[in-house]
């Protein structure tokens, strides 16, 4: 899985913010990870320490906010929560569900040390 590459992108994003906003240490990172984003929360946790080593994020805490998968059924029109992309509508049991939420993969915010 590509969680390490995702986290490398996260560190690049934080480094760019650091040069704009003038902070040098990150104490905490909050990520939003959608259930349907394709990223595995446990793998992100596992890779976080390795990816952040020798960067301004090293030693920071990681908080992951999981966002449920949601969609709307093309048959019955219900707005439903789904666990996976290919699930049939849990309301009517047969409709295709078009995904409307839960694909997020975002840095929400970070806590930085005031210098």
């Amino acid at each position, binding site marked *: *899985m590509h969680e390490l590459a995702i986290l490398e992108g996260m560190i690049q994003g934080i480094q760019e913010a650091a040069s704009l906003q003038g902070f040098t240490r990150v104490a905490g990172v909050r990520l939003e990870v959608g259930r349907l984003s394709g990223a595995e929360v446990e793998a992100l946790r596992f890779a976080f320490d390795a990816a952040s080593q020798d960067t301004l994020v090293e030693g920071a805490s990681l908080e992951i906010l*999981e966002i449920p998968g949601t969609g709307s059924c093309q048959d019955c029109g219900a707005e439903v929560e789904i666990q*996976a992309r290919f699930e049939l509508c849990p309301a009517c049991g047969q409709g295709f569900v078009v995904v409307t939420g839960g694909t997020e993969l975002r*840095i929400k*915010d970070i*806590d930085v040390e005031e210098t």
Partner: protein
Amino acid sequence: MCTTCGCGGGGSTLDGQAHSHAPAPLRPGRRRVSLEQNLLAKNDALAAVNRIRCAAQGWLALNLVSSPGSGKTTLLEATILRLKDRVPVVVIEGDQQTSQDADRIKAAGAPAVQINTGKGCHLDAHMVGHALEVLAPPPGAVVMIENVGNLVCPAAFDLGEAHKVVILSVTEGEDKPLKYPDMFAAADLMLLNKVDLLPYLRFDVERCVAHARRVNPGIEVLRVSAQTGEGLDDWLRWVEARRPAPQQA
């Protein structure tokens, strides 16, 4: 499970109350910086640049994805042989190691550049941007990007292509679209390859297509055999129909 506090997550309640995940209070000496930044923002921005370059040059970029062994390279060889006299074709080859695939493509008569991803499990927009610089395809070329054989990771990385094409060989099992839904959801076309082997296999084509459409109702499906040439004309028509119209000078 909710990884903020270890609760059941996804609609769980405490004493009938939905509990909020308000951020922990900020410790003294710290400040909170709101980023709201997509984790793939860097890749997506580079993909957008690739897409603009393709549009400006009239290139049709196709991102070919599949598991290892589906016959991507053989399909590309067969495609190049049939297409190269009508349309310029160039190939970007992605593999963890070796330049064997790029060598095969060059032997088939198309310029090719090999990207070795090393530890990486997918191509990204940055690598493809550099490969385009090296290849410098002629205006109106078809740029075939053969991604690393992997049905998981390449789904998440936009390369700036016009379409993802997923190749599934009939020796793999008809439930692949359900097992790897992200890839089949991201693709516009599924090429069902090695159909010449169907008489020897228990592979239900209709079931496989139904699985793919359950994940992606709009996906197109073509049955091909790179080995015998069956169905390749349909595939070539699909490609040629998607080439951008030549720009007026």
